[in-house]
């Protein structure tokens, strides 16, 4: 599949703003999408702190799709839709990879004990832990051979209230 990688321009809606992005299923495509989105969301007025949260949450969700839904296949597609208003940013990710095991999100998971011996430390499994820490209202669904993962991020620095620009 030839995925045209692009961030679509921000759309101004009656109750907020939205943008969309699409990418293919490789770690480098994820990196480039995150850089594109950082630029677009900086222009939209998100604070550096909130941008950090959004970028990390999206990174973990996208890496999960690349590694587990597509299992390293480079020819898959992923779409990202982001909508935001004053204090909340909502993300919807879709992909055509394998379903989440059991068609459900994993449990929040145990936080690794700080006292573990170094040789017992995990080198993976932190992604879901980070996503849970950074996001709210995570939902997963599957239909038409597609995975849908949605989550919300509470913005620490509320954006200015949306105002309609008057013509003339």
């Amino acid at each position: 599949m030839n995925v045209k990688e692009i961030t679509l321009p921000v759309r101004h809606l009656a109750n907020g703003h939205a943008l969309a992005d699409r990418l293919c299923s490789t770690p480098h495509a994820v990196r480039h999408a995150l850089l594109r989105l950082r630029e677009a969301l900086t222009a939209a007025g998100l604070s550096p702190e909130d941008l950090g949260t959004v970028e990390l949450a999206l990174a973990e969700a996208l890496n999960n799709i690349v590694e587990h839904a597509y299992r390293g296949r480079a020819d898959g597609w992923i779409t990202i839709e982001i909508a935001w208003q004053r204090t909340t940013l909502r993300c919807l990710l879709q992909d055509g990879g394998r379903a989440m095991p059991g068609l459900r999100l994993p449990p929040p998971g145990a936080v690794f004990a700080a006292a573990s011996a170094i040789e017992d430390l995990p080198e993976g499994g932190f992604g879901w832990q980070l996503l849970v820490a950074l996001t709210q209202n995570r939902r997963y669904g599957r239909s038409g051979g597609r995975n849908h993962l949605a989550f919300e991020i509470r913005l620490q620095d509320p954006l200015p209230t949306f105002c309609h620009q008057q013509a003339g």
Partner: protein
Amino acid sequence: MQIETSERGGSLTVAVRGGRIDAACAQRFKDDMRLALACEPRHVLLDLSEVEFIDSSGLGAIIASKKALPQGAEMALAGLQPRVARVFALTRMDRVFAIHEAGLPPGHSTAA
């Protein structure tokens, strides 16, 4: 992403050059660190001051490097930007590494 190393008296300083340790370069970071640690240092300082973004893959790669150290050797981190420090805090890995809050301690430099 590249690393630069300097070694003095069994103490190795590794500076990460480049702004990200993410899924796209985590394996390379691990491989580069394994080569750098072949000198069997007693102490390693990882200078992350240029790193502005790290994800769970990058965190896992740093943990793998710590685990690859010789028995009894230590690894400390320095120069964490706020976004990077947050990843260590949220996963509680800030309790596993010694973290120098204010840049590089004296005696560590990768400058030529």
